[in-house]
């Protein structure tokens, strides 16, 4: 049974059909790339899975539960996490507090008011910061970070709740080549406990880290398979050549 199974997803905005029966299947510990030309519906599909949009039709299952109607909070509690396309770290808080905020999300109200999980979570906060090479800036405000570092902080925050599925919307947007390479390195270790869906324009990046790919075109799935299969696929080559 796959970890995530979205099928028959359609999303209509007024006269615009963004998705038309799209599907996405992700297995345990699988890195899955979602690619396609601009306007093919990648981000919309991601939002339908994440709960930021409600699909017009279709069904999303996660860990054998139908979550189509779940709110973002319920999805997060079920083990799904999302990194937004635009960075949304909390700029006035320190890096430490940003991570703590993510880590304590499921503490009870009682524990929060009495600050009872603060000490217990300290080591986890520092581990996350170290893992994402941000430990030396733990007490700086997040606004002081470079764009790439903010993206890493945000990935760290998205991973803080130990999700089983992480959705990354354009993690390398606006990054330098070097930052992209580091991002790939930072993502590798999480495969042991987490699956990943990545929407990304950088095909080299996708090819390097993903196991499987789904290609969308005009709201439909054009092809889905392993990286090698997709690379050999004639119609995929065509849409990318056509628009290149």
């Amino acid at each position, binding site marked *: 049974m796959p970890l995530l199974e979205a099928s028959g997803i359609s999303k209509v905005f007024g006269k615009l059909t963004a998705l038309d029966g799209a599907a996405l299947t992700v297995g345990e510990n699988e890195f899955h790339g979602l690619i396609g030309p601009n306007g093919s519906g990648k*981000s919309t599909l991601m939002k339908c899975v994440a709960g930021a949009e409600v699909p017009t039709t279709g069904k999303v299952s996660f860990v054998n539960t139908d979550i189509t109607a779940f709110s973002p909070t319920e999805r997060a509690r079920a083990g799904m996490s999302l990194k937004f396309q635009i960075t949304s770290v*909390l700029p006035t808080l320190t890096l430490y507090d940003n991570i703590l905020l993510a880590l304590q999300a499921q503490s009870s109200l009682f524990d*929060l*008011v009495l600050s009872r999980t603060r000490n217990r979570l300290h080591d986890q906060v520092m581990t996350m910061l170290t893992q994402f090479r941000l430990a030396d800036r733990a007490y700086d405000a997040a606004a002081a970070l470079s764009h790439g570092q903010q993206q890493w902080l945000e990935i760290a925050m998205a991973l803080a709740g130990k999700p089983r599925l992480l959705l990354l919307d354009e993690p390398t*947007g606006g990054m330098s080549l070097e930052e992209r390479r580091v991002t790939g390195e930072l993502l590798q270790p999480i495969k042991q406990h987490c699956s990943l869906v990545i929407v990304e324009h950088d095909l080299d990046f996708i090819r390097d880290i993903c196991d499987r790919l789904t290609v969308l075109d005009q709201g439909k799935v054009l092809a889905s398979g392993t990286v090698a299969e997709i690379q050999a696929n004639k119609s995929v080559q065509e849409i990318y050549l056509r628009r290149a």
Partner: protein
Amino acid sequence: MGGAREAVARIGEGPDVVTGEGAPAASAPAGRTSAGWKVLPIVEGLVLLIALVLPWVLQDYLTVFATRVVILALFALSFDLVWGYAGIMSFGQALFFGAAGYGVALMARDLNVTSILLILPAGTLIGLTASLLLGGFLLLGRYPSSVIFVSLGTLTGSYAADRLARGWYYLGGQNGIPSIPPLTLGSYEFEEGPVYYYMVLGILVVTYLLCRFLVRSQFGLALAGLRENEQRIAFFGYKAQHLKAIVFAIGGTIAGLAGSLYAFHEGFVWPNMLGVVFSTQVVLYVLFGGSGTLIGAVIGTVIIEGVSFWLSDNYRDVWPIILGVLLLLVIMFRPLGLISFVLGERERVGSFGKEPGKGPSKAAKKEAGNAAP
């Protein structure tokens, strides 16, 4: 609540390509903790000190005025918690203040209850109940409610209560309820003056400390997240709307406490206490002093009330204009309020995790202990 659904739909949308390295980072100053860290406790201590000696230096009629200001500061605190910390635009905070005031006034008039031991719990309970009902309705939808919805909803609630009180004979109509007897404790009567002053000051200090504890806790960190990006923290798994409703209810409770103290201090209640006038006034106190800092709410109340008291004595006709210009200047040039003259951004927001210089954590100490031979 159509706007709310759209707001949810907008999550994650943005420019496809983020232009320029470091451009977003350049928009805010670097945040390394500065050396002069602890301004806040000094300001708080000074304000408390001044408050403690006031009745000794003021004439009696000014002590009565000061008492009123202290009660209003308590009211301002309730709004600051709701707006400054949780980001809920409550334009109708006076609803809870006034409802409690009317409630305890009725208890005194119709049931002859004046014992402080019954009146203050009753006032807080009325504030709590009213804010739970209104907050539940405004904040606990399937989707997060928009700022406009909440601000108009609270404003409408306050306005409706005002109209209701004006039209309802039982509540005294336009004149309100006059001649409320003094608060009592056994056979002792709390008359206006130093005793009433120190009592409300004590209540303000205790409430202030409780709020301070709350906003500096991990709960306060969640509130900071709520204020800055509600949708983001919902995606972490926070029950964002519940958090909002809880803070709203705490704010309503404090407003209820303030309202009942106010009713007995003034000796009468009138419809303005429920309505737009008081609701707006409390917004101004907090904006003027500095929202998102508890002491800012207190300072704002003291200065606005003090200045308008002085102005109305000396410039009988034009004083509202002078006050208005003054408020406008502060809001235009000091959007973070007067407190921002002395308080840095880092300290205003605060740190919730371990701070540098506070020593290693327990776990780290243990590790160090193990490493030693």
